[in-house]
Every structure is written in structure tokens, then in C-alpha cells.
């Protein structure tokens, strides 16, 4: 009984931290606009937290560049267990238009394990919410 109570709690209150590893901040403003009245995510219990210590879901945007790859790894390590990573935007999934530029590692998954990919340049706020809902379903099954 306790097991699925904890699982219910994890699904109902996924706290998010947002890390921008070299994105054009188109995806970042779409993440922030998911918090605002029109697409309010707080009704699912998603709160944007400041420190990685308090968060369970990391919304990572941008194709990782060499300078921010160590910071991305460090923020990921600071997050307490059970943690999940959502790659928001095509840059985070595969490096998108910047493929071949010298300062880019193609995508977030070259540094940290990623659970959900949300394509789109930038994905609409409802696409981001749909991505997080899929992540919650994934937690449901594990």
C-alpha cells in the first residue's frame, strides 16, 4: 500500500528545475509561459523551483555547449534521487540547426541520461505539458 501511495505522491507533485545549456531561450520563454494563467501548470502540482536540491524533474533546454557541459553535469548530480530529465526543444534533443558548429555537443543526452524528448523549435507550452504528462505516465509504470 505504501508503495503506490509514494508513487501517487511523486506523480501528483513533480517539482521542476530549469537549466539552459546554451539555448536561444525560445524554449525557455515557452517553459515560463507554461506557468502563466493561460497554460497554468500549477494545477498539476508542477512548481518551478530555484535549486536543483528541491527538484525532481530537470527541464533542460539548448544544445549543450562545451562551456556549460560541466555545469549541466554538476546540476544533475546535485539533484536528489529519483530524478528525471526532460529535454525541451529540438536543440536539446539533437542539436537542431546548430549541427556541426564547433562549440556544440549535439543534445542533452550526450551529458546526462534523458527520459523524455520534446521536439519543436520551440515546442508550444501545451506540447511541454504533454511531455511532462508522458513523463508522469512513465513514472506510473516503473
Amino acid at each position, binding site marked *: 500500500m505504501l508503495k503506490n*501511495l*509514494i508513487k*501517487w*505522491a*511523486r506523480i*501528483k*507533485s513533480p*517539482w521542476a528545475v530549469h537549466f539552459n545549456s546554451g539555448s536561444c531561450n525560445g524554449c525557455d520563454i515557452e517553459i515560463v509561459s507554461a506557468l*502563466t*494563467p493561460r497554460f*497554468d501548470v*500549477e*494545477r498539476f*502540482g508542477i512548481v518551478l*523551483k*530555484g*535549486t536543483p*536540491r*528541491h527538484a*525532481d524533474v530537470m527541464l533542460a533546454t539548448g544544445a549543450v555547449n562545451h562551456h556549460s557541459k560541466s555545469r549541466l553535469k554538476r546540476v544533475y548530480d546535485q539533484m*536528489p*534521487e*529519483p530524478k528525471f530529465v526532460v529535454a525541451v526543444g529540438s536543440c536539446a534533443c539533437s542539436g537542431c540547426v546548430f549541427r556541426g558548429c564547433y562549440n556544440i555537443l549535439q543534445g542533452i543526452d550526450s551529458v546526462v541520461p534523458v527520459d523524455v524528448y520534446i521536439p519543436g523549435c520551440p515546442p508550444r507550452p501545451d506540447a511541454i505539458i504533454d511531455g511532462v504528462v508522458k513523463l508522469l505516465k512513465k513514472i506510473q509504470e516503473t
Partner: protein
Amino acid sequence: MNELYKIFYLLIFPGFAFLVVYGLLLEWADRKIVARLQNRVGPPWFQPFADFIKLFAKEDITSEKADRFMFAAAPIIALAAVLTTVIFLPLTVPALFSFEGDVVVLAYLLTVPTFAIFLGGWYSVNYFASVGAMRATLLLFSYEVPLLMSLLGPAILAGSWSVSSILAFQANHDWIAVYQPIGFIVALVALVGKLERIPFDIPEAETEIVDGPFCEYTGRKLAIFRLMFDIELVIVASLISLFYLGGFSYGNIFLSALMFFVKTFAVVALVAAVKASFGRIRIDQMIGFCWKYLVPAAVLQYLLIAAAKIWM
């Protein structure tokens, strides 16, 4: 029978279980009102419960440079202090202990959490935490004096230092808020400072120093700290209604219980409205505001009481 009643009093009704549940419900009410004022939908009713259980199930990290014992002890001290205040407060049923001077004990117990936050922040050896801890203590000096003065006003009027007798005084006269409107306002503003709510939530100013003293806390310790804040909300809201709004001991049990919920909810709604309509002011402005306006208002209130006592 008396022992069993005490245990029931401490653990179930106005004690631990009731406070936890009601605290979390009040946190939900607060977040929902603020969200609705910002015309957002706001979280479902079970949100604080889900947050609490999830935090308990999370991994508990203590940074290796932090002092293990104090880092773990701080949240427990804070929670213990806030929970012991319930012994003196006559919530619907008469208080367990009530002696002359329990107002002062109450005030002391309510400042212990601030010191616990300071210790927690200081021992987690993180920049943001240490600056947040410093700010928490700085804040203490600014709102503590007006809060105490506004609590002592009714005590003087009722001529006694115990909460229950202040309550009795209000039973046969009408509410103290009618006699002391200025004291009531000063109490409310100091209350917002006490709970570290916007516009005075300077210690954990989210955009400046990343959750202040709590930024190193995770899992259980963070859950306890958040629970402490919720219970403190309940305690201070009932304190205000006890001192100024005539408390809750009416004839039968149901009417007083109903009045308890109505009054505390009213205070929380007011605080939430304040949170939705103000920005966060700086620490020096806060201290200036408290000492320039709140303390003189409280002193003025004393003069009025003294004058009233002489003529009455």
C-alpha cells in the same frame, strides 16, 4: 481519565494530527487564493499532502562540508517549538495549561523557529544559505518588537497575562479589536513579517538567493521545515483571533469549532490577499518600515489604553 484526555489532547484533537492536517489544508487555501487572485487555476486540494509525502520519499542529501548533527537537528527543533505552543492555546476546548505569563512563553516559542532556520542556514555552509540565515535574524529584530507589543496590548486591557483569561475578558465585553484597532493592524502586519510572507519574505527571496537557508535541504528535513511553516500559519492565525477577534469558546462545541475555522480562514485569506498584491521590499526598507511606523503605532496604542484605563 485525565491522563487519557491529556494524551488525546496532545496527539489527536488540537494537538499534532489536527494541526498537521489543518496546516496543510490552510497552505492549500493560501496557494489557491493567491492563484485565483492572479487568475490562475491553482493547485488541487490534496497538493500539500502530495508534496509532503513525496518529499519524505526522496533521497536525503547532507553536503559533506555541513555539520551533520546541527543540519539535521534544526528542522526538528523548529517543529517541536511550534507544536508546543498548542498547549497554551484554548482552541475550542479549554487549554491544557494556562498560568499567568503564558503569553510571554508563547512569544518565546514562536521565535525559536527563526533561530532554528538561522542555525540550519548557517550550518549548511552554502553562500545563499548563509546570506539567507543572516537575513532571517536581521528580519527577526524588525518584526519581533511590534509583534510582542501588539500581543501585550490586549493583555494590559484584560489585566492578566494568561491567554485563557484574556479570552474570558472578551467573553463578557465585545472583541478587543473594537477597543484596539491600531493594535490589531500592527499585529496583522507583524504577523506577515513573522510568517516571512511577501512583502517581507526576504530570507528565502526566490529570485535573489535561491530559497535562502533551505537551499541545501532535501527530502525529509525540507518536508519538516515546510510543515513547520504551515503549522506556524495555523498557530499565529488562531493567536490573532484569540487575542483580537474574541476567540472560539461559545456555548456548544460545534459553534466554537465553526467559529475557529471561520476566523482562522479569514486571517489566512487576508494574508494571501496581501501576498498577491505586493512586491518584496528590501531588508533595509523592511527594518526602516518596522521601526518608523509599526513601533510608534504600537506605542500610541499603549497611550490610548492607559488613557482609557484612567477614565474607565
